[in-house]
C-alpha cells in the first residue's frame, strides 16, 4: 500500500562494496559512506524495530566491508541477513554479522584468500601485512558464526575448485552444513525471523498490525 511506512529497515548490499576510492562507472556499487550513517540512524530511530540485510554482492573493499560488518554486529536491534545470488569474499563477514542469517538454495558464497596486486614491495613485511589482514577477516567470521577456524582455513586455501584461485564455492545448503550460515531460507523466513526477534506490540486500540504478536 503506497504510503505505509515499514518498521523494518532493509539495506541491500549489492555489486561491489565501494570504499576508499571510486570505482569505474560500469560497476554497480554499494557506497559504504552512506550505509554507515544509515546504521547509526537505525540504531537511534524508535520507529525501526529491526534490520534486514539483503546481500547479492561480489565483495569489494576490505575495510569498508569490515566496517559495515562490525557496525551490524554491534547493533542493539535484531538483525537478519539474507544471502541471495551471491555473498562472496568480503560479503561473507557482513552476512554472518547479523543475529540470524539465511541463504537461498541457489545462492553461493565464495571463500578465498585476499590478494595484493599491482606494485608491491617484496619484503617479508608485505606478506606479514597480508597475513594480518587475512587473520582479521577469519577471526571475524569465526566469532560471528558456528564454523571452526580450522574448517574455514581449509575452505579458504583449498586447491582445485576455483579456476583462477584457491578457495571454495559453497552453494546454499553447503554454507549451512559447514556452520557459516544459520539456515536455508528466503524472504518469508527472513521476515518471520525478524518478527520473532523483534515482535510488533499490538496497537493500543486492538488493531492487528503485520507481524504483531497475537
Amino acid at each position: 500500500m503506497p504510503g505505509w511506512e515499514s518498521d523494518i529497515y532493509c539495506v541491500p548490499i549489492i555489486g561491489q562494496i565501494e570504499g576508499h576510492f571510486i570505482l569505474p562507472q560500469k560497476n554497480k556499487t554499494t557506497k559504504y559512506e552512506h550505509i554507515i550513517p544509515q546504521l547509526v540512524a537505525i540504531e537511534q530511530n524508535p520507529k525501526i524495530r529491526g534490520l534486514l540485510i539483503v546481500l547479492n554482492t561480489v565483495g569489494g573493499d576490505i575495510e569498508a566491508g569490515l566496517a559495515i560488518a562490525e557496525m551490524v554486529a554491534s547493533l542493539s536491534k535484531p538483525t537478519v541477513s539474507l544471502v541471495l545470488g551471491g555473498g562472496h569474499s568480503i560479503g561473507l563477514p557482513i552476512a554472518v554479522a547479523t543475529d540470524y542469517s539465511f541463504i537461498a538454495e541457489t545462492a553461493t558464497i565464495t571463500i578465498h584468500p585476499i590478494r595484493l596486486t599491482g606494485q608491491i614491495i617484496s619484503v617479508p613485511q608485505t606478506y606479514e601485512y597480508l597475513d594480518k589482514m587475512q587473520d582479521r577477516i577469519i577471526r571475524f567470521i569465526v566469532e560471528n558464526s558456528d564454523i571452526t577456524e580450522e574448517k574455514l582455513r581449509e575452505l579458504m586455501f583449498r586447491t582445485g575448485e576455483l579456476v583462477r584461485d584457491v578457495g571454495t564455492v559453497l552453494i546454499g545448503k553447503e554454507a549451512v552444513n559447514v556452520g557459516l550460515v544459520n539456515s536455508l531460507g528466503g524472504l518469508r523466513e527472513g521476515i518471520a525471523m525478524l518478527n520473532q526477534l523483534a515482535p510488533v506490540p499490538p496497537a493500543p486500540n486492538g488493531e492487528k498490525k503485520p507481524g504483531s504478536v497475537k
Partner: protein
Amino acid sequence: MLHTIYPLEVVLDYEGDVEPNLKELTFGQMTLVVERLESGEHRLVRLISPNPQDYLIGWLQPGSIVISDFRRQI
C-alpha cells in the same frame, strides 16, 4: 584493497569513464555532492550530514535525481 571474486582488471577498468562534474550544495547542516547530467538534472553522488536520520530519507539516496533548486520531490 579489494577482496572480490571479480578479476581486478575487470573491476578497475576505467576506460571510457568521464570525469564527473561534481558540485557541492549546502542546505543548513546538509551537504549534497551532486553530479550534473547532460539532461541538466542533478544526481546525488554523496550525502554528508551530521544527522544520521537524514540518511534514511528515500529521495536522498545516492543515485537519486535531486533538482538544483532543492525542491522536495513528492
